[in-house]
């Protein structure tokens, strides 16, 4: 027989225990917070502030002109050091003092005036993405300079492109990272918390109280689920405060939809953690297992670092099996695109389906006996 009172007595007991155990309280509250801060601030997807070395044999007006164009923006490159020999430059590159180097040969300006100006760009290729970016930047600056020169000579340009960024007009990476981090944190923290909820009772032996009492499986699991949900909701509130006031990410869509989809996602990750708790028997194993099972997929397969559409077919399929993928999409749509409910509905429905499947699995696999 289902008694709501029993469900609440489980919740009450869990919350009480949590409030009195300083260590777990700190862990539960501080982990999501610090993850948000560390990832939100620490994770930079852009390449900025690349230290450059310069070896200018020509030392002419034009070589300095090119250089000043490169660093004029101030954000992407800066000149770490000027060199006087190739040997020195070589050393600096080897020791990582500079990540790229410009080498202007003798007669650079002379050759340029002949229309044959050439200089060398040396790039540290140990970090391919960065190397790519350095190359494109330098190329872009040089092309721009070429165009300027051609225009000066009175040549008309047949084709030109005018880009404009939508949804994230200033192309601010920090906003995207912060919102993505919210999804990742909410995939991990509630799952880890609830993964310990049943295991800890198995470890201490108090699980026998549940086994031998007449409390129903459904009541017990619901009580645990609610506990996880409540604690994670509190975390969610704190994370939103960070997002709004610290990262100052502008919300374009509906606040209500944002809350709704977040609460739904918390329920999904709580149910997932609880399911792991049903299977594991030690807290250490449950903790490590849950971390691996949540961290890896939610960072790699959800569009957090790289767009899912640019991954292979297999990866794309994997992504669709991971709830975080849908939540990430919901978050970005609400935050940056202010998508209408109609457009969000399928993803919300999918999350709901995830929740029901996961909770049913809980009910199916949890046995009120040791084996």
């Amino acid at each position, binding site marked *: 027989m289902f*008694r709501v*009172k*029993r469900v609440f*007595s489980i919740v009450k*007991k869990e919350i*009480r*225990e949590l409030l*009195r*155990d300083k260590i777990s309280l700190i862990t539960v509250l501080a982990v999501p917070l610090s993850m948000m801060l560390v990832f939100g601030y620490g994770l930079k997807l852009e390449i900025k502030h690349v230290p450059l070395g310069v070896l200018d044999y020509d030392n002419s007006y034009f070589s300095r002109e090119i250089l000043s164009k490169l660093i004029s923006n101030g954000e992407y490159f800066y000149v770490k050091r000027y060199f006087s020999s190739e040997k020195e430059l070589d050393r600096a590159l080897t020791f990582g003092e500079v990540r790229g180097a410009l080498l202007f040969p003798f007669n650079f300006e002379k050759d340029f005036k002949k229309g044959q100006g050439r200089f060398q760009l040396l790039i540290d290729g140990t970090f391919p993405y960065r190397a790519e970016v350095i190359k494109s930047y330098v190329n872009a600056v040089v092309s721009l300079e070429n165009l300027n020169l051609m225009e000066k000579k009175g040549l008309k340009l047949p084709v030109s492109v005018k880009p404009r960024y939508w949804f994230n007009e200033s192309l601010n990476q920090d906003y995207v990272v912060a919102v993505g981090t919210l999804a990742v944190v909410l995939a991990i923290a509630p799952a880890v918390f609830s993964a310990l909820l049943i295991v800890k009772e198995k470890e*201490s*032996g*108090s699980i*026998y*109280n*549940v*086994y*031998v*009492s*007449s*409390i129903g499986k459904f009541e017990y699991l619901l009580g645990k689920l609610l506990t996880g949900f409540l604690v994670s909701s509190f975390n969610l509130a704190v994370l939103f405060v960070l997002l709004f006031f610290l990262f100052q990410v502008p919300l374009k869509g509906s606040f209500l939809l944002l809350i709704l989809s977040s609460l739904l996602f918390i329920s999904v990750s709580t149910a997932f953690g609880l399911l792991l708790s049903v299977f594991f028997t030690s807290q250490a194993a449950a903790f490590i297992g849950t971390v691996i099972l949540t961290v890896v997929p939610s960072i790699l397969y959800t569009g957090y670092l790289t767009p899912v559409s640019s991954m292979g077919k297999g990866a794309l399929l994997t992504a669709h099996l991971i709830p975080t993928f849908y939540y990430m999409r919901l978050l970005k749509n609400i935050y940056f695109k202010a998508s209408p409910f109609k457009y969000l509905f399928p993803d919300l429905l999918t999350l709901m389906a995830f929740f029901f499947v996961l909770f049913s699995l809980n009910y199916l696999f949890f*046995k*009120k*006996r*040791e*084996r």
Partner: protein
Amino acid sequence: MKPVECENLRITYRRGRTVAVDNLSFTVGSGDIFIFIGPDGAGKSSTFKAVCGVLTYDSGKLLTFGVDPNDEKAFEPVKERISFMPQGLGQNLYKKLSVEENVDFFADLYGVTGEEREKRKKLLLKTTGLWEFRDRPAGKLSGGMMQKLSLCCILIHRPEFLVLDEPTTGVDPVSRREIWRLLYSFNREGQTVLVSTSYLDEAERGTELLLMKDGKKVVSGSYEDVVRTESQAFLITSDDPYAVYQKLWDITNTPRLKGNTVRVLIPPEKLKNFRELQKKMSFSAQPVEPDLEDLFVEKVGLRRVVLPPIFKPKTEVPENAVVVENVVKKFGDFTAVDGVSFTVKRGEIFGLLGPNGAGKTTLIKTVLGLYSPTSGRISVAGKPVGKDVKKLIGYTSQKFSLYYDLTVLENLVYWGSVYGVSPSTVKSLVSQVAPVFELQEFLNRQVAELPLGIKQRVALLSALLHSPPILFLDEPTSGVDPVERDVFWQVIRELSKKFGVTVLITTHYMDEAEYCDRVLLMNRGKAVALGSPRELKEELRKEMGNAYLIYTDEPFDLEEKLKSLGFKTALFGRKVKVYSLKPITEDYLKELGVPFKKLKPSYITMEDVFVFRVLSDV
């Protein structure tokens, strides 16, 4: 409907590779106090869990209140009628919750509400003496109090049938008696009790008992039926007990050398040989009633252990081998050891006796130099504790310092090298000693898969590899059966008596004290009594008089009556133990107007000593 009917029960683990319970049959009748006795790993817990429907059994017939516990759905309503308390101190409690909150949570679990719940809660907490501690977190209670709280919790819904897995293990004797008293009072209310213990001396406290070993039943019935044997038990005192003990092995395989007494069972056909030996060696042999240990020993049979002289220590220690003076050890504001003093003589077996949390382990670690004392002085082998002293010491910790993934031999070689004994020396030593310790077949097996008794021997051997003159053993015999225990004590005795090894040992088994030359009783960090077991018991006997057991159907009424007459008493199931300076006879009881079924002389035990010393201490 009987609470439990069980036939040919079989429970296995690891897909049948480990058999926990095999071919076990028993019946618990309504109103019984049914005791399961056996060492760790005997299969008691598995049986209890199966009875409560927490563990699925493999085969056989098992009915709890007429319902098969393996049938998950049908068994669910039966759970309203039973209560289960798992093994381990306060295992089923929520340590961060207060005493009252724990009880409330159980009430919620079972749907006990309103006034009934408040009334029941108050009654239970008051009878257990926990009412005044109701706001204290469960984790901050003593072991005995935790167990009492566990009882309160599982009794909140008035179950008809209590299943308690080792509720008294590791609990101090005073609390132990209180817990038993509680069980009796519930039993008087009509509750059936199924309880397990690893203490053999608790056997007498139930109405029925079942002795288990290695998953099988050894014997069962009422205590009086179980301990019935053809043989005669004797307690022998002599000037040279060791010589008598040696000779007795020619007659029987049941002699046990305990301190300066020998306990033995003599079968009728050997009685003649025994009397001849007695004449020849002129010792006194007092016939005694056999107890459960005697019976166990007789059923299984003991084995003589003779140690080769390789364990003779190379270093001589002074006459006062270990000196402890006024040692205090505090952790924060908690005093674990509170001003304890004693001196262990060279070649002596010295026991530190007390319940969990009494401070034994802290004390032994302080003496070893693992903790530095807050105040007081310690010397081991005549020197203050330091690096060079550690070479003179062998030590086994409570959890055995063995690596479970290594084989026995690998463990021994490892520990040898820790103490500076070369692997070749260890191997030659092991090849000589393995037969004595009966370890040959286990040498190349992983420690993890060994039975507890074997692990214990390996741990002991690992502490002996460098032939230390002083041996520290922390709870080495917890949970092993009496035969295993005797092998262990024979080794200890040989070491001490033949080679002059000094042994300091801790235990919470009161009856184990008998094996020691002298014991120090500890409770809550303080020394309660010090002396040889015989002296301590004799002292108490002089103060309190002889002990008697009175059989009755109304133990509570009888106890009340005796108490009102000024006697000191203790409840033992449907018996009352009473202490009296004036001899108690049947006529005397009639004269006092005390109703009784049967009267039997009894003994002062180490538990009595502990209980009364602690109580008079308070």
